[in-house]
């Protein structure tokens, strides 16, 4: 397969970036998108130029490291998929593919397609955990948990923090990410002790990081590689409202 690639090139955080065109040929349809990027970089390096910097790690769709806004969509055109799980057979031969970094004020571009998603770490660190006194391992059945709640908590916990929700949202809102991290504890008995403090701390941090507000377009849910539901956003708002009212 043959493609014209339009890729955002930016030398560093301070530099002016621009779209640069590349031609690439002899691409196997069963290559992953990132493998195609590897082939491109090989080609660029052989010419003695600077390869395209992009984030990647597990290449199994579970780490949340790969990003890229491909043809106007976070993680490309495939539903419920990260960029690493996107294959070249999902494109048509001869197509022009535009590749841009995730765009948000809170996700500054470090180089080319790499953005700093540290804002998510700061939100997590603000309250996305439970304080547990370590001691002996308790029997797993000590705390009964409703199966439905356990499943819902699990679906929320499936969030890999890739930032596609922010990238897809017209307001660059982090509501889906934060709500998933709030919900995975809010749904379980272990999360109740710090439920109010957690949602306040995480929502406050979300504001500090400079994300936009949620207008319920549903773009985040549609582009989320893990299919996190926006019902989590309703839960976060509910918890935030009640925590803000009862806060001392």
């Amino acid at each position, binding site marked *: 397969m043959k493609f014209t690639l*339009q890729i*955002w090139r930016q030398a560093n955080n301070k530099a002016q970036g621009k*779209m640069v065109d590349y031609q690439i040929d002899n691409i196997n349809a069963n290559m992953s998108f990132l493998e195609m990027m590897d082939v491109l970089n090989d080609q660029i390096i052989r010419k003695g130029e600077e390869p395209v910097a992009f984030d990647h790690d597990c290449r199994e769709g579970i780490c949340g490291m790969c990003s890229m*806004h491909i*043809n*106007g*969509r976070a993680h490309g*055109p495939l539903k419920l998929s990260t960029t690493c799980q996107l294959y070249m057979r999902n494109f048509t031969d001869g197509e022009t593919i*535009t590749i*841009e970094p995730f*765009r*948000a*004020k*809170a996700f500054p*571009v470090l180089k080319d397609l790499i953005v700093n998603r540290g804002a998510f770490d700061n939100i997590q660190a603000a*309250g996305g955990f439970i*304080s547990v006194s370590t001691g002996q391992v308790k029997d797993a059945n000590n705390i009964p948990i409703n199966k439905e709640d356990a499943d819902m908590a699990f679906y929320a916990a499936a969030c890999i923090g890739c930032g596609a929700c922010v990238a*897809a949202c*017209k*307001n*660059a*809102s982090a509501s889906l990410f934060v709500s998933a991290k709030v919900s995975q504890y809010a749904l379980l008995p272990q999360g109740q002790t*710090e439920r109010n*403090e*957690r949602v*306040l*701390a995480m*929502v*406050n941090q*979300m*504001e*500090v990081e*400079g*994300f*936009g*507000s*949620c*207008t*319920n*377009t*549903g*773009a985040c849910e*549609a*582009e989320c590689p893990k299919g996190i539901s*926006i*019902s989590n*956003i*309703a*839960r*976060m*708002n*509910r*918890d*935030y*409202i009640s*925590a*803000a*009212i009862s*806060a*001392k």
Partner: protein
Amino acid sequence: MEVKNKIGFLNSGIGQKVTMALTGLFLCIFLIVHLTGNFQLFHHDSGLAFNEYAVFMTTFPPIKFVSYGLYAMILYHAFKGLHLAYKNTKARPVKYQVEKASANSPWTSRYMGVLGTIILVFICTHMSNFWWEYHNGPIPLTKYETSLVNGTMTASTYVGEIAGKKLEYNNADNTLHTVIIKDLYVVVAEAFHNIGLVILYVLAMAALGFHLVHGFQSSFQTVGFNHVRYTKVIQAIGIYVFGIAIPIAFAAMPIYFYLLSIHLI
């Protein structure tokens, strides 16, 4: 964890969206009240019911009180909405070269600010057409005389002045009931002889419908109401009642008076 709500509810994005949702829902309730009242326009009584309704709405103290709250909420909802939309554009300082938003979200949800601005312009036009005219303009007076014997009613232009908006009395032998009242009905009917105004009103109602298709259900989501069973019901109400039925019913009024003016009905 010792955490206080440092930013404060009303300064947070969620808090501000909650105020948008609550004022929006209040405005939805107002639409129902306004529509119910305006149905008096369709009475075949030369406008008596509508004029009586106009007097009631502008003189009954609790309604006057709520109406000031309503104006405040319209202004708040409009300007806070524009403020949030502006702030949200700041959250993405560098735009995408290619963005395929149509693949992940309905257009109504992405153009709430544009639709809302059209509605705001409409509200200003609408208030100056009728509200301002009714309070400050020269409104003709109409005299409605209803026979208390056989119920027949005649309406005629009243030349002269009355104190207030309405004067009501019976004749000495209790056979004739007379109402002299400010005739807003005729102002409405004449305004919609203008096809340009009719088109503006109909387009504004289309904008209102699209605004509410997203807005109604979105406000429930914002205040935290999302449920596998009830959310579907809320979405259906948002689309069919607030998105389609109510705007069509409102749009029917200018169309009705225009058709009357060209003698098609």
